[in-house]
């Protein structure tokens, strides 16, 4: 389990869970779960296209999430954030269908992009993953307070000169970066779980923002570590375990809060 090729998985998984918890804190606080669902699913055709062209999937992913953020902001500016997000998602999935129809050997590659590939992290992948993770942690640390006020009390934030449009761009950019790094490891469906499950569970357990952030990180690490172990033992896809553990954490935390409040 700790042989040399697994070490990369452990390092990448730990880094990804860390930044997913950081960004997920704001996904939940801003009620942007739909965007966090649409970006990874919309981005996976980017990896498929990169496979087709024989370039690094991370580059394809970064290009696709970049276009995704741009389109999201353009459509959202016209109003109706939910509709805009949904349309961008379907547009990208349609492109994915087109790209995949052009290649024959796609089945296993697509499967691992959707549901994750625990052994898929090579030495060459590791450095860009860690670099992007460091960038995301820096971004969140820098904008923590303005993002927090804008996410919870937008009126009060505007009064302090915090621009909602800029905060939205900062948030979506960080979300896009996490998406691009996490997708090849945990898969498109499960990026969402990692972004939403642990932070939502943490927010049910505490109201202190710094404590919520720390709890999110701890729960996300617990989630991905146990998923790696279970996936290694059972040979089942890591995505199955990330999904179940994420949903489980959320359910347990919400129930705890519910019973505590009675």
């Amino acid at each position, binding site marked *: 389990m700790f042989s040399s090729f697994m070490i990369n998985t452990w390092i990448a998984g730990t880094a990804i869970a860390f930044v997913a918890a950081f960004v997920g804190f704001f996904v939940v606080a801003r009620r942007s779960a739909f965007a966090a669902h649409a970006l990874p699913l919309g981005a996976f055709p980017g990896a498929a296209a990169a496979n087709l062209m024989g370039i690094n999937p991370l580059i394809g992913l970064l290009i696709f999430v970049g276009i995704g953020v741009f389109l999201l902001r353009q459509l959202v500016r016209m109003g109706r954030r939910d509709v805009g997000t949904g349309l961008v998602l379907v547009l990208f999935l349609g492109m994915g269908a087109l790209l995949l129809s052009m290649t024959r050997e796609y089945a296993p590659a697509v499967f691992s992009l959707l549901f994750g590939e625990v052994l898929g992290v090579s030495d060459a992948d590791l450095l860009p993953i860690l670099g992007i993770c460091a960038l995301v942690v820096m971004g969140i640390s820098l904008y923590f*307070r303005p993002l927090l006020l804008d996410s919870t009390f937008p009126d009060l934030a505007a*009064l302090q000169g915090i621009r909602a449009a800029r905060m939205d761009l900062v948030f979506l950019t960080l979300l896009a970066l996490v998406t691009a790094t996490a997708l090849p490891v945990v898969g498109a469906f499960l990026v969402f779980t990692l972004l939403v499950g642990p932070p939502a569970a943490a927010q049910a357990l505490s*109201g202190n923002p710094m404590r919520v952030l720390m709890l999110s990180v701890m729960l996300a690490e617990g989630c991905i570590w146990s998923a790696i172990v279970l996936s290694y033992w059972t040979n089942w896809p890591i995505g199955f375990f990330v999904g179940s553990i994420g949903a489980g954490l959320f359910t347990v935390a919400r129930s705890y809060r519910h019973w505590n409040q009675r």
Partner: protein
Amino acid sequence: MSDPILSVAHLSVDLGGRSILRDVSFDLYPGQLCALIGENGAGKTTLLRSLLGLTAQRSGQVLIDGAPADQRRALVGYVPQKIALDPDIPLRTRDLVQLGLDGHRLGLPLFSGRKKALVDQALYAVGAEAFADQRVGELSGGQQQRAVIAHALVRQPRLLILDEPLANLDFGSANALVALLGTLTHIQHIAVLVTAHDMNPLLPVMDRLVYLVGGQAATGSVDEVVRPEVLGKLYGHPVTVLRHGRRILVLPDVAAEDAEACTAAHMSHPEKAD
């Protein structure tokens, strides 16, 4: 008397081609509480937005401490009408108040004794110590108002603006809030501007009144403004002002010919008039 903290002169605002405010003028001095009274659509929110420098005006002037409003935002504390009620918001009352102090700053929040003292002071000023460590989303409506007022007060503004703070509050909470506003105004010497539909709950603490009807305003003390001849001119039809003890009621007069028409309609179509 010292200089006014807020000075509005001949302010007119158009929105989407419609005239929303016409020639509104009033001054507000430190230690005064001014009530901005008007019905829905009278222009209260537009006037507040102009004071905050958020709406472009067609003509006129808004000066805060002698300078244009958008240069003096730091002197103004604002309590918006709609307060979030999401119980999951990851903020305690004390976090919300602290964000009033440093929400615009970059970087992670570091512990600072000076900041904590300022936050505690603001929490104390609004009587929020008891729920300082509770989640904002779990507070009652009156407690949320106090939390947001503390958020506004923590930067020690000289002008505090509250948009409909009494809406959705029960009697007890509304009275307690009015008493708090009186304390802030008359003891801490802040200038306070409050909008409301009904002036009655504010009468005990009110120094000035801006009465808005259809974008035009009558301003002055209660006795100067709430008179049939002043309000009748504003409404464009005669009104009756009833005073009962310390309560005031403004009612439109039904003109004699209108009353006759009503009666006639009632006589000829009694079933419809029901």
